[in-house]
């Protein structure tokens, strides 16, 4: 009996889908739009996170040492700093490396090259590049270094960059919060649009729902085909959405690479395509079923 009923429900919803093909297509199309918004939100979130991470990694503070500072003392200081919780990465640049980098940078500038040749000794000091987990942590690292009053430290470039780092840290936090906020609002709107479309599709069948009840059909026998249709809308829409994203991203990726600082969205998409599809699939089915449930509830009170 159960399989008979199940088969009938599936058959009825497929027939209804086909006989109301324009309503079905319109509903699927709106669902595709909604899922497209959801997908775009997921992708832009990934891009935002990647960009913010990129920027964060570029922020660091550099401790410059006087040229006479012995290497052992610098290493000692490096080991102490490494033990700080806030420190993510620490990089030692020796005097020779600093000089090579300096020469490389000013290779074209004859005056500077000549001046360097005039000098007997390497005028540059060694330095430590310190990266923290979060821009706000540079303050405490800088304070630690200043409080230590290490005689070998020439200068710490944090104070010069403090304003920039503070502002950046604020912008990063704000854009993350705003991003989440906007995503929630847009996802809410997308849901409401899809919900209303399905509700309209069921609204046209409201009288039939009442008749089915009066003819002796149980609530679930009336309702189930609408739920199956909801699932069907979700499945078809999520597949279509995936096929909209695919070429779009392949086309956008080369243009995006210029602006997004080396982040390849197409690569990201392809690497996560299964997960991505699963999310769209789940959201699509959920929206379809929940909308159908809510929409049929009203008309079943007969």
């Amino acid at each position: 009996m159960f399989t008979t009923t199940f088969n009938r429900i599936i058959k009825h919803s497929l027939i209804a889908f086909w006989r109301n093909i324009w309503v079905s297509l319109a509903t699927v199309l709106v669902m595709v739009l909604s899922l497209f918004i959801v997908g775009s939100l997921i992708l832009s979130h990934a891009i935002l996170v990647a960009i913010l991470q990129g920027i964060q990694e570029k922020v660091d503070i550099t401790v410059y040492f006087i040229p006479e500072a012995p290497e052992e003392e610098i290493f000692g200081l490096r080991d102490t700093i490494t033990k700080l919780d806030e420190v993510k990465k620490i990089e030692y640049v020796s005097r020779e490396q600093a000089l090579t980098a300096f020469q490389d940078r000013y290779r074209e500038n004859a005056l500077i090259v000549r001046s360097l040749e005039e000098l007997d000794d390497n005028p540059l000091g060694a330095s430590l590049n310190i990266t923290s987990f979060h821009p706000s942590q540079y303050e405490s690292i800088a304070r630690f270094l200043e409080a230590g009053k290490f005689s070998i430290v020439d200068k710490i470039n944090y104070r010069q960059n403090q304003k920039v780092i503070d502002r950046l840290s604020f912008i990063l936090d704000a854009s993350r919060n705003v991003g989440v906020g906007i995503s929630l609002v847009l996802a809410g709107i997308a849901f409401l649009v899809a919900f209303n479309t399905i509700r309209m599709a069921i609204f046209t069948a409201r009288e039939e729902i009442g008749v089915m009840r009066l003819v002796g059909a149980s609530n679930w026998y009336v309702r189930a085909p609408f739920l199956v249709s909801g699932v069907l809308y979700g499945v078809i829409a999520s597949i279509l959405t995936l096929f909209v994203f695919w070429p779009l991203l392949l086309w956008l990726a080369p243009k995006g690479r210029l602006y997004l600082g080396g982040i390849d969205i197409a690569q990201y998409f392809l690497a996560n395509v299964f997960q991505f599809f699963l999310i769209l699939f789940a959201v699509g089915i959920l929206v379809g079923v929940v909308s159908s449930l809510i929409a049929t509830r009203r008309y079943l009170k007969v």
Partner: protein
Amino acid sequence: MIYFDNVSKIYAKDAIALEGVTFSIEPNEFVSLVGKSGAGKSTLIKLLLAEEKPTSGHVYLESLDVHTLSRDELPFIRRRIGTVFQDFRLLASKTAYENVAFAMEAAGRTDEEIEADVPQVLALVGLQEKAHQFPFQLSGGEKQRVGIARAIVNRPDIVVADEPTGNLDPQNSWDIIKLLGKINELSTTVMLATHDKMIIDAIGRRVVTLENGRMIRDEKRGKYIL
């Protein structure tokens, strides 16, 4: 079999649909419910189907008070009552065959039973040729015959017809009434609500007359008198 016990239905202070109506219907009776529009005929039928609840009083189907049933239990009594509506109320997206089959499916019949019974019932109402047409392709009389086929396909104890001829021409009306008579002969109780004087006078069976929500007459071999 059916017992209306002091039933009242009051929508608002100045909208009283039924007031203290009491009468019973025996098995295999053919009862006509007559009265002007707004006399309370449809309300009485809606109360029997538990489409609406009475303000006071009870409606019994055998010993069962239909308004004590939960929404999940209602389908079981509705399957014992076949209903024909003035506006046909067919499922627009289903063919004649599917409309009739739906009532059987809803009652949990097997595919074999459906395949055997639906063509038979459609033949009974003379529609075997149009089984696979949609309601919009059928005339009013044909639609109502589908409605009757749907109402009787589960072999109900009672067939309730609410102004079944209200939207039909005289010829089609007669066909429908003859069908109802035939159904009654096959030992099914029939409850027919109508305001068609010609039909009532011609049937010559029990007539219950309603006026302004009150029962004013109940005659074994009634005429349409208002």
